[in-house]
């Protein structure tokens, strides 16, 4: 999928500028691109490193697990098909907690474990179960409270108030989750699952 997008962006870009006579600009662009990528990387790297450091403390102090326990009542309602004591719920909670703190890559291992636990109670092994779909909807809606990379990049470009986008972001991500969950719920009801 990403291969297609990559192909599309480059080919359209180069062909279009050939026809419109902007090829010299593209030439410059290709040659200076690397530096821009490096600058981008350098501006997000310190915050990623710092934040994963802070979150490691939270993890070792048991904050993620504590948060997961707090979410248990909500989760058992969202996942009626999963038994209450199933470890999948714990992994789902940790995945959501890590996502919330802007640790996308720390969230992935929890998410993968949650999926393999859900697969154990799945009756048709090649077909997505209802619980899996609810989990992925929750996951891709991506409830993020601290968008680390966005903050880092805003700081790097000299924003006067880098964190001013946190609240509107939280509202948008919250609506996205609710919208996804509602549609998921109605489809489940219609299918009587």
């Amino acid at each position, binding site marked *: 999928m*990403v291969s297609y997008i990559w192909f599309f962006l480059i080919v359209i870009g180069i062909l279009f500028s050939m026809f419109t006579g902007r090829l010299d600009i593209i030439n410059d662009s290709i040659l200076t691109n690397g530096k821009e990528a490096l600058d981008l990387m350098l501006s997000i790297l310190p915050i990623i490193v710092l934040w994963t450091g802070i979150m490691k403390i939270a993890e070792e102090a048991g904050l993620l697990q504590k948060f997961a326990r707090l979410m248990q009542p909500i989760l058992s309602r969202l996942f009626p098909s999963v038994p209450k004591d199933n470890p999948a719920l714990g992994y789902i909670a940790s995945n959501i907690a890590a996502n919330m703190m802007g640790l996308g890559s720390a969230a992935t291992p929890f998410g993968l474990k949650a999926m393999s636990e859900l697969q154990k109670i799945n009756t048709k092994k090649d077909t997505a179960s209802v619980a899996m779909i609810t989990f992925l909807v929750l996951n891709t809606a991506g409830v993020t409270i601290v968008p680390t990379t966005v903050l880092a990049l805003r700081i790097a470009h000299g924003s006067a108030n880098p964190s001013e986008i946190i609240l509107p972001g939280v509202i948008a991500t919250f609506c*996205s989750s609710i919208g996804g969950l509602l549609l998921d719920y109605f489809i489940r009801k219609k299918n009587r699952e």
Partner: protein
Amino acid sequence: MNTLSKIVIPIFVVFVIFYGFKKRVSIYDAFLDGAKEGLMISFNIFPSVIAMVFAINIFLDSNFVYDVLGFFEPILNLIKIPIEIMPMALLRPISGTATLAIMNDIFIKFGPDSYAGRLASVLQGCTDTTIYVLALYFSSIGIRKTRYSLPVGLFADFVGISVAFLITMLFF
């Protein structure tokens, strides 16, 4: 509102460090371990950042967006959507790195505190890359029939992106 947004992170940091200290975690070593993981993560995403900045810059510098989508510009302006944002909104469910590269471009051209810059920031944080997540998670456990998961995921993205447009308009 301004002060609220400025205290979220400091409070969180002091809370985590305090909690870790109370639980007798060796906080300094834990931080170093985490930081090391963060370095590895950054190292691992670096190639895809280079690849995406490369493709996105060629695409944006070709002016394709302006010349072709420019047709819709009056309509977009009516609802206060800068045209530069459109490729970002369209690519959001597919590639997080591509939209990161576009956001970076918008920051360079207009600054992070411009309307386009703020809108890009909210957009980047509001959803995850649905198609990537679905592919990764389902393939990890060998699921081939994904049923209604993609439409629901894309619907959630659509809601998130629409709300991001709306909320940025209301906030700034």
